[in-house]
């Protein structure tokens, strides 16, 4: 009996040790990933919840082509949120190991640049990816602080435009699309009623609010950050922008009150249901969502207004910014030992054919000029989006932008209760702008190396 018990105990112990060993080895494998395998490239991209199947297909196609041309494999890694993206990059920067290539949002490029962990593209590097001149010059606007100091290789373009329900506009007798923010408000008023609203706006979205305010402020000549080190949030142009944005729901009544708690997808759903005339902050990624919806065949894209609120024409110092320079940049980690492979990968996905395929699957516009021209020729209805791409302007290229963006959104987040009650007073708005100004300036004051 004693012997049997000991044997059983020994077996259990042996199994436990074996399991622990296996787990440890597995853990080592996970930690090391392909880091030690010179024949596997690690590429990190954002997860695509809208087109997961297409993403899988694209990854398979890309990896197969990469293996055919280079003999190397690709290990895909994904992040599901901006926070996860930040965490992954921070961990890699500190540890000096991680993915070899990252696809990062354009507005995150300045922060990535500030870490100094990514390859600065010189003439040799641009040649290695197929040449700098293959890219639309506008798409390089947020690749680095200057033309000679760039880390971001443009990969996909997602300029913001507005979707317009042509049927509702026609019913309201509107024949011309608005080109000023005031005209947009008036047209929205004219199309509100009978269960429909003039605009679908997502006040609780984590990103939309700052894009509206940034756009209106740029049109008035305010770039939010002046000279790379001065915050300009507590200014008339920005206050007018917020006032216009808030009034749509509190005073003008052109936005559904429920939109105070909406994110962008919910606003898109309202537009897709045919319940809103304008959806003024969307990209080509909405194409598939609108396919087969109540507005299919009854909508078109249009440029966002470029004349600031309260004006009939853009002031002399106003900026014709139809959208932020939006999309993805590829950056190559400088700690990696597989930079040649990394550039091979970038070259492959930057080719006109690969870029056209990317548009076909995900609706995101190419940054490759040749591919962009072909797509524009083949899809005349996308002309406004192509035009928006050309009129896109970069946000301030500073490592502090991430924090400034948060401050701009926070003004709206903290105003939500007043939006709900029907009025954000001037005092409340000014107080929040002062807080945002203080936070943004404090972030800018902490910049090192000139913010880069």
């Amino acid at each position, binding site marked *: 009996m004693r012997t049997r018990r000991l044997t059983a105990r020994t077996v259990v112990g042996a199994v436990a040790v074996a399991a622990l060993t296996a787990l440890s080895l597995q853990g080592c494998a996970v930690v090391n990933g392909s880091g030690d395998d010179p024949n596997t490239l690690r590429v990190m991209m954002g997860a695509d919840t809208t087109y997961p199947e297409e993403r899988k297909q694209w990854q398979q196609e890309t990896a197969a082509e990469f293996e055919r041309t280079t003999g190397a494999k690709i290990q895909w890694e994904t992040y599901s949120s901006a926070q996860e993206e930040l965490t992954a990059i921070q961990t890699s920067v*500190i540890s000096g190991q991680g993915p070899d290539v990252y696809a990062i949002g354009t507005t995150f490029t300045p922060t990535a640049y*500030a870490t*100094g962990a990514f390859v600065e593209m010189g003439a040799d590097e641009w040649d290695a990816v197929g040449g700098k001149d293959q890219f639309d010059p506008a798409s390089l606007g947020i690749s680095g602080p200057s033309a000679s100091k760039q880390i971001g290789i443009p990969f996909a373009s997602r300029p913001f435009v507005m979707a317009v329900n042509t049927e509702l506009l026609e019913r309201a007798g509107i024949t011309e699309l608005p080109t000023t923010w005031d005209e947009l408000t008036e047209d929205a008023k004219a199309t509100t009623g009978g269960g429909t609203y003039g605009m679908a706006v997502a006040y609780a979205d984590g990103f939309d609010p700052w894009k509206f305010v940034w756009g209106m402020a740029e049109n008035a000549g305010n770039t939010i950050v002046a000279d790379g080190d001065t915050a300009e949030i507590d200014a008339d142009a920005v206050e007018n922008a917020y006032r216009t944005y808030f009034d749509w729901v509190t005073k003008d009544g052109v936005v559904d009150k429920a939109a105070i708690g909406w994110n962008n997808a919910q606003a898109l759903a309202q537009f897709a249901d045919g319940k809103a005339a304008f959806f003024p902050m969307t990209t080509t990624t909405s194409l598939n969502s609108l396919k087969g919806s109540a507005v299919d065949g009854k909508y078109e894209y249009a440029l966002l207004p470029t004349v600031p609120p309260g004006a009939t024409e853009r002031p002399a110092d106003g900026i014709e910014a139809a959208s932020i320079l939006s999309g993805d940049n590829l950056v190559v980690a400088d700690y990696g030992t597989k930079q040649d492979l990394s550039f091979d990968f970038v070259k492959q996905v930057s080719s006109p054919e690969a870029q056209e395929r990317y548009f076909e699957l995900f609706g995101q516009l190419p940054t490759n000029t040749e591919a962009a021209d072909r797509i524009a020729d083949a899809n005349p209805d996308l002309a406004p989006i192509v035009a928006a791409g050309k009129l896109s302007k970069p946000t301030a290229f500073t490592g502090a932008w991430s*924090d400034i963006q948060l401050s701009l959104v926070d003004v709206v987040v*903290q105003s939500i209760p007043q939006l709900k009650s029907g009025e954000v007073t001037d005092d409340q708005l000014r107080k929040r702008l002062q807080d945002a100004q203080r936070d943004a300036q404090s972030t800018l004051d902490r910049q090192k190396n000139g913010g880069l």
Partner: protein
Amino acid sequence: MTATETRPSSQRSHRHEVRPPGKTPLHKRERPLWMLLPGGVLMLVVIVVPLLVGLYIAMLDLDQYTLRQWFSAPFVGLANFAEAFTDSPLLHSIWISVSLAVLVTAVTVPIGVAAAISTQNRFPGRGLVRSIYLIPYVLPAFVVGTFFRTMLQPQGVVNSVLGTDVLWLNGSASYWALAAVMVWTSWPFVYLLSLAGLQAVDTEVHEAAALDGVTWWAKLRYIIFPYLRGPLSLAVIISILHNINNFTLPFVLFGIPLPSSVEVMPVLTYIASFQSFRFGLSAAMAICSLVIVAIPLFVYLRAVKLDTGDDAGPTRKQRRADRATLTAPAAADIEGARA
């Protein structure tokens, strides 16, 4: 008579003779303390070293510009701590976190105790009910947060059922929404500990109470609650600690930036780190949080120390006193009936 007392007197005197005056007794000196070494090293590596590194980081101006060579980031002494207290929403977030933790714990204790008592007696399906009670506790916080985020939308099921038009995820109502979700997720923990406490009540005590004809309230008040005092104290402390440190629920429910009414400590620290890249400041905030958490933790450790072995539940003396209190009126009743 105790075991010590039965030991032969010669043996006891021998012990006294071999011990050099002023030195540790032999039986203590011979303890194999070296066996604590692996545990000690592990504690050093897992707890002490990261804590010291955290303290060091809290004194650095560590951000996106210095992240790569973080060891050579500018040393700023206590400036991050000063900024955390004077120029950040830390104090506000401490108030939010602590008040939420206390409120949620105060609500969950009666719910947990009631649930434990409701499943104490045998009835058909008791196992199923006990399992159902544990569902909120075993569901991952991320899943719970996502469910509630959907239900608390302006046009979500909560507003539909209540017939209200409240913004639960923004503004002041978000505080109560977070408290409600935290209550939903954390009451089963109190229930579990209460159930464990109830299991510790001797069967004889129940039988004695039944024989004595004790009313249900007297039984609860004088038998059950004294037994639950220990487990419930622990439940309260751990619940407060857990709720102060709750990151996932507010993060998933409200996203970033948080409405100011739910600007809790863990998320504030996260934002400082991973949104603003102020790693030094966030380390300082985290250390302040540690101090806040250490207060109930200290009480918790004291409670654990007091609540071991024979000390679990009421003391023997207490039990005797309680039984006397209970049996006295019962005996009087019986005596009265006899007369």
